[in-house]
């Protein structure tokens, strides 16, 4: 049955997932009465504001950025936890945003999500076997309790747990083991596409390595496609084929992973890379970038990064840059477009005007 479902001829060679001009605004205004009495205006938080990217089958695209940049909102939009304010999400050429809950059901099976917090993502009152079997039962993929249990045992082995672990409750497991359970649940409906929202950021490094290795092995074995959300650039470097950098709800740079890290274009990407503590202890002088992420309710005019950017000029302050192709990928930066920037990681930026 699943073979038949997989053999959708349309867009077989196109990207598995394509997102176009995706946006999600949140109304964070105070209640109407307060607004009327105190004369407050409506406040709209543009968590994601026009993001476009595509992921090829079997590849990993990572979205990186600091907290509040909208990367998790993109993940939640794709899996349907939020409805988009604007834009389309094409999964094998079918726009998910327009589908009803029932029409979505057969497609749902094919994408799953792995969450950040292994202590919150498993229902504490359910046995592990029931947790893993939930997608199977919800979509009616396998009939018969014994067959379901066999499948669960197989999944448990896939993620490095023992079949009798299925009879335990989540609290009997460590954080890393719980994340394995979470992965087993995500795999149980034979998905093609996994959205991973910071899957290792709550884990210790040695356990993080286990989970990252497991995810890479599973990707090879099942030909999975990943959208990987993380703030940890080193992890992103390890897992990704392509990387998108987000800042205040917009994609500022998109490129092949190796290229992005070797020759970052956008000043924000450069800053992020420069901020990573240097484990190689090369003695490289780092330039800590001044300033913090501005209030997303009142983003700066023009390029949102201009108040922190050492290369900002008048155009950057007034005109918002669009994502445009560069020799290495794509970047949304006037300075990159005008070739005003020195080569990455060679020259120190000029001092910030104070």
């Amino acid at each position, binding site marked *: 049955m699943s073979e038949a479902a997989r053999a959708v001829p349309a867009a077989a060679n196109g990207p598995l997932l394509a997102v176009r001009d995706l946006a999600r605004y949140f109304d964070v205004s105070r209640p109407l009465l307060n607004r009327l009495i105190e004369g407050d205006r409506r406040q709209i938080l543009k968590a994601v504001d026009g993001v476009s990217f595509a992921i090829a089958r079997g590849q990993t695209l990572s979205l990186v950025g*600091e*907290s509040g940049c909208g990367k998790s909102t993109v993940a939640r939009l794709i899996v349907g936890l939020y409805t988009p304010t604007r834009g389309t999400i094409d999964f094998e050429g079918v726009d998910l945003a327009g589908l009803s809950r029932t029409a979505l059901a057969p497609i749902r099976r094919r994408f799953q999500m792995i969450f950040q917090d292994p202590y919150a993502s498993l229902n504490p009152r359910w046995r592990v076997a029931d947790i893993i079997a939930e997608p199977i039962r919800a979509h009616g993929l396998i009939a018969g309790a014994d067959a379901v249990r066999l499948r669960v045992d197989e999944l448990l082995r896939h993620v490095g747990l023992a079949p009798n672990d299925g009879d335990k409750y989540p609290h009997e497991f*460590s*954080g*890393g*083991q719980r994340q394995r359970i979470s992965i087993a649940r995500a795999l149980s409906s034979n998905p093609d596409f996994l959205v991973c929202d910071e899957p290792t950021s709550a884990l*210790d*490094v*040695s*356990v*993080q*390595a*286990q989970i*990252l*290795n497991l995810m*890479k092995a599973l990707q090879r074995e099942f030909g999975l496609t990943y959208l990987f959300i993380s*703030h940890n*650039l*080193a*992890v992103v*470097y*390890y897992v990704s084929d392509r990387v998108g950098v987000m800042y205040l709800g917009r994609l500022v740079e998109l490129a092949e992973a190796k290229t992005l*890290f070797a020759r970052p274009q956008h000043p924000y990407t450069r*800053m*992020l*890379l*420069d*901020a*990573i*503590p*240097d*484990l*190689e*202890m090369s003695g490289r002088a*780092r330039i*800590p*970038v*001044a300033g*913090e*992420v501005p209030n997303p309710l009142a983003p700066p005019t023009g390029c949102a990064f201009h108040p922190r950017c050492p290369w900002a000029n008048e155009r950057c302050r007034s005109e918002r840059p669009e994502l445009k192709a560069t020799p290495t990928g794509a970047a949304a930066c006037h300075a990159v477009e005008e070739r005003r920037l020195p080569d990455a990681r060679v020259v120190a930026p000029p001092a910030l005007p104070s």
Partner: protein
Amino acid sequence: MTSPRANRPLLEVDGLRVEFPTRRGTLVAVDGVSFHIDPGEVLGVVGESGAGKSLTGAAIIGLIEPPGRIAGGRVTLDGRRIDDLPYEEMRRIRGRQIGAVFQDPLTSLNPLYTIGRQLVETICTHLDVTPQQARARAITLLQEVGITAAERRIDHYPHQFSGGMRQRVVIALALCANPRLIIADEPTTALDVSIQAQIIALLKKLCREHGAAVMLVTHDMGVIAETADRVAVMYAGRIAEIGPVRDVIKRPKHPYTIGLMGSIPTIGRNVERLTQIDGAMPRLDAIPPGCAFNPRCPKAFDRCRGERPEAMAIEHGQVACWLYANGRMGER
């Protein structure tokens, strides 16, 4: 060692043991931890969650939450034993001689008072100054930690600052009385990468200028590499390895440290598979006999399973591993 130990160390911790009595028996969260910190030195304490690194810091400043208690060992600050002091005296040492910076800046600041009031109160408690002098000092401190328009910002409440700025205020608070030692427990964990770099740079700069020693507790090897002079690697309540930071990071000795370093993904290092340490750190109620790491250790042999290794001196540091007993260098 690069810096010869001029006089006695500033802080000496010897055989520290922290216990939590529970109804299912006593849990030993910190077990025989010994180290020292020289004046002006930055000692990194690194380990995974549950390794006992934060509790070690809390034990030194006398902030172990009951029912936990210090069950053994001694802590000496500047030649004076401080682990058995009554609460009142310990309170005076906290702040005056030991400053603290915690992970979540919100819990270190009282939301009901302006930051100025909190700074001035702390300064007046520990130093013999008039309120006017204290306020002037508070403004200077805020400028030092990089808060612009400090004269105006001093009268703001904690919630009016961003996370990074709040952590700067907490650092200013820790520096109020010019302490000789600062215990920083995961000071950058709650912050974004770019802010993290700012705070690390600030902490380094200030401690150099004020001549304060730092015990930097973190799970992030990168932060340690950037900041520390020496590093202690903790595992299951014990120190696995301690030594100069360059040695520990570049040439780790203990199998746990070797695994830990291998499991950190690094930009520019192209590996198909990260080194991984199988299993997880044991729970406190199930620490194996012998070396606590032996069930996960690829090099474990009989002695590791039966006998607990004490810290053994190697070139520049110490490592608690039988592979290094009697001058052997990692060979069985």
